[in-house]
Every structure is written in structure tokens, then in C-alpha cells.
């Protein structure tokens, strides 16, 4: 059979498989997860998910099944053109027409002999989007333009081939061609995906509120947080709520900083204090409290999954102690993490080594490092390039190799381990069948025989340049105080999940880095901001706002804090199996300790690093348990509880009411409350006068009152 010899017109060039053909196949959806990109392909034809494996895809198209899909001599007769145009039946339907750009590129590529990926061929280095950020009206449309920048410096408009999704389709929708349509006020980011690269276009449409600019210029500004919060609120035309009362501030600052309520004495002293800087002073005092250490040790124990579920008791305790020591010393966060990532030796001497006992397998360990310290879930890339992120399967296995040589053997005592670095051992890339050199994500690869793999890992993870590390911890701390992370969910730092106020996030990150990762400094900044000290009561413009911090976000107390608060107000002690009397819930080293209350209120099991493990939502079960469950009922009538104390001290009814309100709600009862409660107590007392042998008849009404206080929303919620 004679070969066709047709010379290409001068200047014409074969489309590149990598840079032209793959984008067409991806945009047309051929290689999506539901079609030929499925793990097993479709109808005998398998492509890599969104075209990450160029060589395999090229071979599948041109050579597999004896050259079934491409006909280089009669390009238009190629199956890969006949099916998607429905010239032949195609279960996937019509993907493009004969006169489309898709068709032209694919047919041209085949006519040029269907060349494969070339060595040294230019690749997409990054993509750019225009506009990057724009403010529109609530019903505007906006075309987004995507430009690919290649390794040789050249640029190309690839809008036609990019994939678009909206992070908030209530505010903006986007079509296949990148045309955005605003659906209402608010902000949305359009995620743009092209050739495994991801960028965003941010769109905002202000609310239809008429707000005088005085509102923003006269709003209190205590530090840069306020400047940036107000800037965002002004742009969106949302007015901030006013200042919280001193009582409200004090209660929330205690709960958020040390996980407990202020005592009545502390509340009274604070309310009586007339110093202008009394809030700042109380913040300093809180940061120095012993209970600060308890509360934050608990937070980091959640993060590090400290639990006797997988660790022997001794090991669990030593891990907890290790964390506690660091919180006590206010160890800089980068040092804290670096110590864990580079630790070697005997876990009896270094509790942090139990981290490796929890994550024995290399894959698990690598995934935990990214998830716990950077808020990145890499799991998708274990089997294929991450479909929505830039992480490739190569990245994944190169990263995993940074921890592939962690050796582990039994120590001298039971439950004790020795961690060391092996001189060999790698994870094989499953597709290539060989290990790739260890490499931090976005970093520089190490030599295969580099002995300092974990050093390099720790250095990269904790480096100020790492865009995820500081961001992840800033977000966690911010969410603790502000009720919602700037990024939400709080531990989902992927680029496709932008912060609600990116400028503020960046400023906080820069601040934390400048302060040497001093977390107390970060907390001080947040606590002192006017944004933190705002009232939780909405005004007419901000009742919808849950993400821009125009008011303090109301939330239920976390399980441990709630239990401790109830215990504190009732002046009783909780009993936890195997732990000393009076141990507070927040002091528990382990989430395996039995407590129905804590379980019902959503204590996390500490199995996976996942903020969703902690249940925040109020549930019926919680309501039933506080209303009618054993935890509270037992406390109400316990000898020596707060009621017992009132009666023994013979306090006046007014004093009792004041004390109870101050201790549970950090405020005095108001006139209406007094008007209803005082007569009731007096009436009970009058009965007592008639029958002096009876127990104080206020016992019962006071129990009812205490019950009502502790089951009330104002008590169980932080506001």
C-alpha cells in the first residue's frame, strides 16, 4: 500500500498532544470521572482522569486495540472523531460537531500523524485569569479570560478550554465558556482549572444597603484586623454591629481563651473597673492563666489525635504531657511542628515520638502531615492527579518519600517505641513501578540517598514561604475566637477554597510570621480587635452575614467547655473513671474516657484529622440530655452544691439571684427577672416561717431556677 506523501503547508504545525489535544479531550469531558477517565475506563477505552498521564493517553488513543481509534491515513474516519460527533453511536452522546474547534484540532493532530508528547516540549507553567478581582452589580455578567503561560515564556488565551466552577453559586454562576452571571449580593470565587493548574477570579456584588460612610469611619479600630474587616464590610455595604457590653466581652473572652466562665467575683470586679484599658488587661491576664494551658493543650491534642484508642495508656499520657509542656512555654508553632517532624529516639524520653506510633504506614503518615499542619487533603492524588487541585500523582509519591524511611522498633518497655531513620526504603510510584526522589510539594527534589529527608520536610513545612502552614494555624486560632474560620471548613486549605477576607488572612499570616510564630501574640491581636469585641446582636444590614465578621458569631459551647461550665456554676465535681476527683473535662488527656455528656455534645473521637469530627450543631439529644438527663439532675440536688451553699450561708434572695446570674451569665439579673423571681422566693420563705422544722423550702424553687439557667440558651451559647 503506497504511503501518502503530502507536504504540510509552510508554517503549519502539528497540534501538540500535551498542549492542544489533551485540553480538548478534557474540555469535551472525554476523560472525566464518569466517562473514559473512570478507574476502569468506559466501553473498553480508558483515559487518565482529566488527562494527567500524557503518554498512556496518547498510546490508548493511537495504538491500543491495534490502532482502533485513530486512522492517520484517513483522519476523518478515526473512531475518536466518529463517535463524539455521533457519526457513529456514542453512549456519551454528542460532544462536539464536525465544524467545531474541537474537531478541527483533533483532526489536524491526526492528519499530522498523531504525534505523542515530545521531550523538552513546552508545558503550562501557570495560568492567569482576568479579572482577578472585580466588584459588580448584583445582576451583572462578566466574561472571565484565562491565559496559559508556558515554560518557554509564551502565552496563549485558553479560555475556550478551561473548566469553570463557582464556589458560591447562590452569588454567581458561570457557564462553560467562562461567562459569569451574578445572582445576588455577596462574594463568589470562580475556580478556573486548566492543565492541572488552578486559579481564581473573585467577584463581589455589594448588598443593597444604604449605609452612611460615617458608620465605617467612626467604627472603632483597635488594630489592622479592624481596618481590613471594615474595608470588606464597606465594600459589601454591611454595617457592623455595635460594641459588646463588658459582661458579654468578659464571658466570651474567658470561654474562648481558657475554656471556662469568669467567677462572680471576677465579673463584678471587671464591671466595676473604670480603667480605659481594662479589656486589654483582662486579655493579658487570661493569656497567663494556668487554664490557658489546659484549654490549648486540649486543642492541640485534638489536632494530633492523642488518644488511647491506638496508643497504650503510658504513651498517650506522655504525648499529652509533651504537648502540655510546649503550650506552657508558649513554644513557637514552627518549632513545635519541627520538633515532631524531626524527632528520633525513645518515646519514653520524647512523647512526641508517639506521633509516629499513631501513623505507622508511610502513606498515612504523609497524608497526616499535610492534613494536620497544612490543611491539605492529598488522598485523591494517591491514585490520580488531583482533579481540582494542582497536586499530581508524582507530587504525592515524591512527598510520601520524605517520610518513607522512618524506622520504628519496640522500646524496652511495653508500648514504648524507638524511632530512627532508615538508610533505605522508598514508596514506589504505582504507575511507574519505581520510587521517585523525595520532594516537598512545590519544593526542590532531594537526592535519593539524601539522609536528611525529614529535616528537609520539616524545613519546608515550617518555612515562612510555605503558603499553607502559617495560614492553617492562623485559621484555626482565628476560628476559635471568631466562631468561623476565614477559610471554612477550618482545615480545608486547598486553593479552591479561598478565605472570606483574603487580605485579612494574608495580614494575619504576615503578622504571625513576623512574630516568629508566637501564637499568644496572634491571640492577643485577635482578642484586642474591635471585631472580636462586637455585639452578637444583628442590625438591619448584617443579619445574613455569617462570614465577614460584622458581628460576633453566636455558637454553642464545645462539649468539654459546656460540661465544665455547668459543673462550675453548680459548684460540684465531675467524676471521670480512672482520674482524680475534680478533673475538669478540658484537662482530659484522652477522648476515650467515658462520658455520655461529652459524646452527646460532639466530643471528637480523634480518629482522623478532620474538623468535622467535632460536632458543633445543637441536637435534640443534647437538649434531652440537659433537660432530663442524669448529668444535670444529679448536680441539682447534690450535697455541697451551689444551692446548698446559698442556704447554709443564709444569703438573701437578692444576693442569691445576683450570684447565680453573675456566675452563669456574667451579668446581674435585670428588673424583669428580679420582678418575677424575688416574689417567688419570698413566698417560699414565708411558708418556712410557719414550719421551722422543715428543710429550707427555697431548696426546690432554687433547684428549678438553677435548672432553668443551665438549660437556657443564654447559658449554653457563647455570644
Amino acid at each position, binding site marked *: *500500500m503506497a*504511503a*501518502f*506523501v*503530502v*507536504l*504540510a*503547508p509552510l508554517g*503549519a504545525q*502539528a497540534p501538540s498532544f500535551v498542549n492542544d489535544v489533551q485540553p480538548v479531550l478534557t474540555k469535551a469531558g472525554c476523560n472525566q470521572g464518569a466517562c473514559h477517565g473512570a478507574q476502569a475506563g468506559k466501553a*473498553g477505552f480508558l483515559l487518565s482522569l482529566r488527562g494527567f498521564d500524557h503518554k498512556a493517553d496518547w*498510546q490508548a488513543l*493511537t*495504538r491500543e*486495540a*491495534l*490502532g*482502533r*481509534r485513530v*486512522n*492517520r*491515513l*484517513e*483522519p*476523518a*474516519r478515526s*473512531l475518536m472523531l*466518529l*463517535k463524539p*460527533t*455521533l*457519526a*457513529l*453511536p*456514542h*453512549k*456519551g*452522546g*454528542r460532544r462536539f*460537531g*464536525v465544524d467545531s474547534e474541537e474537531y478541527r484540532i483533533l*483532526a*489536524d493532530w491526526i*492528519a*499530522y*500523524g498523531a504525534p505523542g508528547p515530545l521531550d523538552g516540549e513546552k508545558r503550562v507553567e501557570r495560568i492567569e485569569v482576568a479579572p482577578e478581582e472585580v466588584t459588580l452589580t448584583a445582576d451583572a455578567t462578566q466574561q472571565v479570560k484565562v491565559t496559559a503561560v508556558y515554560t518557554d515564556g509564551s502565552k496563549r488565551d485558553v479560555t475556550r478550554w478551561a473548566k469553570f466552577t463557582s464556589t458560591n453559586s447562590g452569588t454567581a454562576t458561570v457557564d462553560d465558556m467562562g461567562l459569569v452571571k451574578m445572582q445576588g449580593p455577596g462574594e463568589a470565587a470562580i475556580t478556573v482549572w486548566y492543565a492541572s493548574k488552578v486559579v481564581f477570579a473573585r467577584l463581589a456584588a455589594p448588598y443593597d444597603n444604604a449605609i452612611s460612610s460615617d458608620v465605617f469611619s467612626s467604627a472603632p479600630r483597635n488594630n489592622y484586623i479592624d481596618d481590613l474587616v471594615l474595608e470588606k464590610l464597606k465594600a459589601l455595604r454591611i454595617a457592623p454591629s455595635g460594641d459588646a457590653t463588658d459582661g458579654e466581652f468578659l464571658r466570651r473572652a474567658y470561654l474562648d481563651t481558657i475554656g471556662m466562665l469568669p467567677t462572680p467575683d471576677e465579673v463584678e470586679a471587671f464591671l466595676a473597673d473604670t480603667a480605659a484599658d481594662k479589656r486589654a488587661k483582662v486579655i493579658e491576664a487570661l493569656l497567663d492563666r494556668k487554664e490557658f494551658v489546659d484549654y490549648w493543650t486540649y486543642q492541640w491534642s485534638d489536632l494530633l489525635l492523642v488518644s488511647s484508642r491506638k496508643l497504650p495508656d503510658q504513651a498517650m499520657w506522655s504525648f499529652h504531657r509533651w504537648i502540655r509542656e510546649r503550650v506552657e512555654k508558649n513554644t513557637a508553632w514552627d518549632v513545635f511542628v519541627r520538633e515532631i517532624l524531626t524527632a528520633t529516639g525513645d518515646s519514653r524520653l520524647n512523647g512526641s515520638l508517639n506521633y509516629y506510633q499513631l501513623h505507622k504506614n508511610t502513606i498515612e503518615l504523609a497524608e497526616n502531615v499535610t492534613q494536620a499542619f497544612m490543611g491539605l487533603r492529598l488522598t485523591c492524588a494517591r491514585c490520580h492527579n488531583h482533579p481540582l487541585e494542582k497536586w499530581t500523582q508524582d507530587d504525592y509519591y515524591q512527598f510520601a518519600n520524605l517520610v518513607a524511611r522512618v524506622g520504628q522498633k519496640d522500646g524496652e518497655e511495653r508500648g514504648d517505641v524507638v524511632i530512627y531513620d532508615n538508610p533505605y526504603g522508598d514508596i514506589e510510584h504505582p504507575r511507574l*513501578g519505581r520510587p521517585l526522589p523525595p520532594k516537598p510539594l512545590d519544593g526542590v527534589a532531594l537526592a535519593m540517598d539524601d539522609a536528611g529527608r525529614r529535616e528537609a520536610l520539616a524545613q519546608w513545612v515550617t518555612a515562612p514561604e510555605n503558603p499553607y502552614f502559617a495560614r492553617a494555624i492562623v485559621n484555626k486560632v482565628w476560628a476559635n475566637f471568631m466562631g468561623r474560620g476565614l477559610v471554612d471548613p477550618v482545615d480545608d486549605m486547598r486553593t479552591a477554597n479561598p478565605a472570606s477576607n483574603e487580605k485579612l488572612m494574608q495580614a494575619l499570616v504576615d503578622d504571625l510570621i513576623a512574630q516568629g510564630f508566637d501564637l499568644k501574640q496572634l491571640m492577643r491581636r485577635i482578642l484586642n480587635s474591635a471585631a472580636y469585641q462586637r455585639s452578637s446582636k444583628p442590625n438591619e444590614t448584617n443579619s445574613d452575614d455569617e462570614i465577614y465578621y460584622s458581628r460576633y458569631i453566636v455558637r454553642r459551647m464545645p462539649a468539654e467547655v459546656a460540661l465544665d461550665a455547668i459543673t462550675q456554676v453548680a459548684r460540684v465535681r465531675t467524676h471521670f473513671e480512672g482520674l482524680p476527683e475534680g478533673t475538669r473535662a478540658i484537662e482530659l488527656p484522652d477522648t476515650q474516657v467515658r462520658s455520655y455528656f461529652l459524646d452527646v455534645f460532639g466530643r471528637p473521637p480523634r480518629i482522623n484529622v478532620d474538623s468535622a469530627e467535632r460536632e458543633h450543631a445543637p441536637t435534640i439529644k443534647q437538649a434531652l440530655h440537659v433537660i432530663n438527663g442524669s448529668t444535670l439532675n444529679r448536680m441539682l440536688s447534690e450535697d455541697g452544691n451551689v444551692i446548698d451553699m446559698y442556704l447554709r450561708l443564709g444569703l438573701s434572695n437578692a444576693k442569691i439571684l445576683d450570684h447565680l446570674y453573675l456566675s452563669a451569665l456574667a451579668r446581674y439579673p435585670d428588673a424583669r427577672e428580679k420582678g418575677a423571681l424575688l416574689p417567688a422566693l419570698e413566698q417560699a420563705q414565708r411558708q418556712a416561717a410557719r414550719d421551722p422544722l422543715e428543710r429550707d423550702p427555697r431548696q426546690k424553687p432554687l433547684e428549678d431556677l438553677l435548672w432553668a439557667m443551665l438549660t437556657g440558651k443564654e447559658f449554653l451559647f457563647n455570644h
Partner: protein
Amino acid sequence: MLRLFYCGLLAALCLNAAGPSFRSDVFPILRDNCLACHSAQTKMGGLVMEDYAGLVHGGKRGPALVKGDAAGSLLVQMLTGEVQPAMPLNGKLPPQNLATIKAWIDAGAEGEEVSSAAPAIPNMKPKVEAESPIAAVAFSPDGRMLAIGELHAVTLIDAEAGVTYHVLDGHAEMVRAVAFSPDGTLLAAAGGRPLEGGEVKIWDWAEGKLLQTIDGHGDAIYGVDFSPDGKRLATASYDKLVKLWDVASGAEIATLKDHVDAVFAVDFGPKPGQLASGGADRSIKLWDLQTNRPSATLSDAEAGVTAVEFSPDGKRLAAAGKDKTLRVWDLTGETPLSIKNMTGHEAEVLRIAYSPDGRTLTSASADGTVKVWDAETLTEKKVLGDQPDWAMALAYSPRGDVLAVGRYDGSLTLYEVKRGFAVRRLR
């Protein structure tokens, strides 16, 4: 005056009543959402929606349309789910599309002719020099002639002189399998168009005379073999079927149906009644030709099977495929016994061939190598490395001294087996 007014009103009503057009409004909706299953080829439910006539004619359940009554039309009833199964099967039609169809039917469902759903296939020429891949190769029993399967043709090359003897053309598409009859007089060349149908041409190759064209199978044929007595032909197709044909008449004798995915290879053994096939369903089947049912299914392979071959004495069966592994079974016992396997390649195995003396087994792989193995131990004897492209065609000369390797890039090389040297390049 009044009359004029009425006329005007009527005209306006008529214009309005014309509603959406079939060609420009309705058909594109049907094309994009329905034709995957209701083309003239697939014809699910007997309904063809490629043109107006197809809709009017309807399917097994009757006409799709009642002109002027959208609500009473089966098409609409199934699109809304009022009649099950709701269409389209894999989703829901956007409401504006449904509205267009309803408006069109209510307005009388007038139809114009539309060009058949299948778009006209443009006539395109390659823009660079391109050779047809060589997808199959076979030696004539006397070893003098080499038949190679290409696009639209089988080319016969004098193996000694290296010159083309005949080009037997007119094949529908790629010739993906070739086989000489045991007496050497006939050549069966099989192929066909993917998704459209299989084709086998039986040639009196010496005369260049076409004896039979068999159109069968619903998809291209990937394997063909003559029975030892030369009277029957077995074919394996992408349509999941193996078929047996009478060579003299071209009539179909039997359809062997048990594979659940494409069948890539079929081979008659030397002993009476031996026939094996292998395919994408990872299985190898030995067929009982009395009942036309499998007598054994070998499921050892971990991925699709592309090659199956009996040893020349019929005591062994070898197979290989996408799992990069050669496997050998002993057939002397009551049931086939797996005796050896060897993951000897770094990519899928495309073809295998036993040497005529049965002592070596050769495999061609997508990893760029052809490897010669000891057939008993599967130890590597020779590597014919640096293959310039995928070696898709493989054949031993009848004396076993020469190995022909044909490739995707259209090249064809003869190797001397003993030393593993390329002795001649024929293409």
C-alpha cells in the same frame, strides 16, 4: 373593513401557530440528548430519532407524536416521566428544551426533512507522510510468502526476494488478522470497521482472486484462524463474540457467546476440537465445539488478554495481555492446569507466537521489546530490543529460523531467531 381586520388577525394567529421549527429548534435537542440510543444503528425501543419520519413512525410502543397534542404524545409523556422509563435515561431534559418540543407538537408538529443525524464525514488527507500500521503478519506454509495486514489491504511479499507479490485490496478498514489455510492455498484476511461491522475476505492469494467476502459481527474482527482440516474458520471480534464459518460457502456455522467484553484472539489447536479465545474480560475460554459452550474458562489473567496460542503439539496453551504476563497451561490432564507464568514485560503484551518446534515462545510488547522465551521454563533467551514502535504483528517462519515483526509505524523486520539479529528490513 371588518373582513380585513379578521384576515389580519388570522394571519397573526397563523404565524404564531407556526411555533418552533423542527429543523432549527427541535432536531438539535433530539440530536444532543436522544441519538446516542435512538440512532438508526442502536435503535433502542425500535425508535429512530434521526429524522422526522422516524418520530412519526415511532417505536415498539407506537408513534412518538400526536400532532397538535403535546400532552397526548408519547414523546412528551416519557420526557416528563409520566410514562416510564423517564427519558433521557441518564438525566433530565432542561425545561426550556421540553417547552420547545411541547410548543412544536401543539403547533401541529410540522416537520421538514433534516439531513440524517450522522454528519457528513469530511474528506481529509494526511498532512505528513504516513504509513499504515502493520497489524498482522503470517507466513505461508511453504515459507515463501509473507502476508501483512494493513489499512484496506493485505500485501503479499516474497519473503526471499523482499518484493511485493500482490496487493489484495478492497478491505473495509484495517486488516487486523491474517491466516493461511493449512494447505497454503487460501488466505483469510479479517478486519472491518470498528463499531460498524466485521469483515473477512478469503482469497486465492496466488491468483489474487477474491473467493468470499463474509460480512458478520457487529464490530471489527481481531483474530482469525483456520481449523486444522481447513474447512472452517474461527473469528474473534470486538463485539464480544467468536464465530465459526464454513470456508467453502462463507456461511456462518455457529456463534460462540460467553465473553463479556471484546475478544481479541482466537486459535484452533492441532488436535480435533481444540479452540481457544481470549479477550478484554480477562478470560481465556476453551470451547467445546459439540455444544458451542466453553469447556473451561481460565481466569488467571489480571487484565485483558490480547493473545492466545496452542503449542504446536496441542499439549500447551499460552496467553498474554495487558497484565504484562505470559501464562502457560498444561492441557494433557482432564482440566487445564496452570503451570507457569512470567511477568516478563514492562508494558502490555500485544502478540505471542510459538516456534514451529514448540520449544520457544515469543512475545511482542508495548514496552518496545520482542522477547524469545524457553517455552517450558519461560526463561528469557533473547531480547530483540529497541523496537521503533509497538510490534503489533508477529510470525515464525515454518522452519522456525526467522521471525517477522510488523509495527504500528508500518515497518517490518525479519529477525534470525538463533542469534537474535535483524537480518532484513522489508518495510
